[in-house]
């Protein structure tokens, strides 16, 4: 109970501080700008009433946006040394990491929520099949969670936000590209690589088919990076 309350307290603080600093506004504005422009450009080209163009973009957009959201979460605390206060409060490291992670996920959720008007626009023009739309949003949240977990882990490794961002970008890109290099691999290895692809599972969910295997993948992926982060955050600094 206390643990949940602590996670909630950390979450609240982090979420508000996104909006107290320019981070939230910049992330949301630029995200909407990119996704809006690229979506409608595609949309009119294809001429189908669907959200496919948006959900095709999101895996790539998130590679940049997720590390941008998470880069400051721990790195800034290290830089400004507020981490020494945070880590000496009666707070478990897991509570800190989970609270921060959920705040990042919530910000991503807000950004996604603001793309809903695209769907309404589309449905006013033609018949929109809402199944894949909700699937797409669920998938985007899950895939976003995976990217954010990577980003948070990178942030807890360093006191330099740029390093956290670039490293996060690199690892996210790796898990995005991993199933796209399959042609160079022998058959049985390729299924393994496909399984580790963040994008592959997203495509499954975005089709509107919710398979437990895909959900399990995301949950275990996030959990793994959460655990790495929990260990990394305790890393001691000299002085």
């Amino acid at each position: 109970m206390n643990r949940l309350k602590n996670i909630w307290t950390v979450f609240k603080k982090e979420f508000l501080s996104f909006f107290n600093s320019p981070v939230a506004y910049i992330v949301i504005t630029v995200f909407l700008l990119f996704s809006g422009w690229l979506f409608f450009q595609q949309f009119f080209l294809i001429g189908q009433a669907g959200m496919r163009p948006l959900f095709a973009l999101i895996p790539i957009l998130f590679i940049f946006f997720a590390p941008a959201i998470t880069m400051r979460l721990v790195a800034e605390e290290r830089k400004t040394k507020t981490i020494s206060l945070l880590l000496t409060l009666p707070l478990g490291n897991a509570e800190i990491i989970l609270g921060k992670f959920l705040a990042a996920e919530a910000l991503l959720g807000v950004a996604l929520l603001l793309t809903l008007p695209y769907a309404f626009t589309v449905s006013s023009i033609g018949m929109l099949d809402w199944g894949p739309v909700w699937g797409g949003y669920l998938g985007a949240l899950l895939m976003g969670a995976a990217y954010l977990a990577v980003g948070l882990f990178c942030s807890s490794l360093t006191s330099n936000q740029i390093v956290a961002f670039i490293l996060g970008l690199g690892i996210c890109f790796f898990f995005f590209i991993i199933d796209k290099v399959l042609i160079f691999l022998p058959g049985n290895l390729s299924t393994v690589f496909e399984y580790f692809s963040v994008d592959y599972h997203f495509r499954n969910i975005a089709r509107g088919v919710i398979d437990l295997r895909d959900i399990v993948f995301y949950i275990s992926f996030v959990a793994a990076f959460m655990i790495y982060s929990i260990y990394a955050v305790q890393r001691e600094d000299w002085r």
Partner: protein
Amino acid sequence: MIEARSLSKAFGPIEAVKDLSFDIREGEVVGLLGPNGAGKSTTIKMLTGYITPTSGSVMIADMDASREILSIRRRIGYMPQDIPLYEDMTVIDYLRFVSDIRQISSTARREKIRHVAERCSIEKVITQSIGTLSSGYKQRVGLAQALIHNPDILILDEPSSDLDPNQIVEIRNLIKEIGKEKTVIVSSHILSEVQATCGRVMIISDGKLVADGSPDELLAKERSDNRVHITFQGVGPEEGIEALSRIDGVSRVKPIEDGRFIVIARKGRDVRPDLFHLAVARDWVILEMRTEQVSLEDVFRKLTMN
């Protein structure tokens, strides 16, 4: 209250703290003194569980720091060096955040924040964002944060760097007041501060404990003789030396300039009455007489410089 046993901490090849053992009883106000880089902060960070010792153990309120660190942290108020704070939060939001983590109920929270804000005199800036505050105010916000849950143990790492003289006096009074009922550990390299606030001083040098005792004890230990500065009107060096050396217990007399002498007697021997009687007998006029004070600075310098 606090027991440290053979604490050591190495950062790679650098041994910051070496085999440090001490006991701090409930209600003591202890000054942790040492030059920069002596291992004060490292010691404090090990007490708060921010870093784990390479070897040795810490027991706080009968709890082992390696196992029950969260329970220990509930009873500690800690103000780290340089007072790191969330610059983009307002003071009140920050104090609310800390009280929520400290499991202060939302009904008690308002009153606690009001109380601590008054105690640290930050009521005026309570709605300001921390980034806009002067360093004196930041320091007091840091202190408020450490006091909000009324901790049994208060640990302050260099509390008065960055304060102006008035604020230093304020913070010292606050520490003294808190020290009446709580266990307080203050680290500092400012000697006057420790002397003014602490009943006990531990001097750390090069990661080792080199002295431990009340300021008076440390001073007494360091004083190997008793020196009196005296000035007579119109007394020449030879005449003075001849008369002064004859006083019982005086080991040496140093003439400084016209009429001024330093009379060095053995430890514990106060020669001032004899000087007075001598002056009366010889019909000399005493213009000045004072004992030379050994300061904590001298003790500190002697113990921490090799």
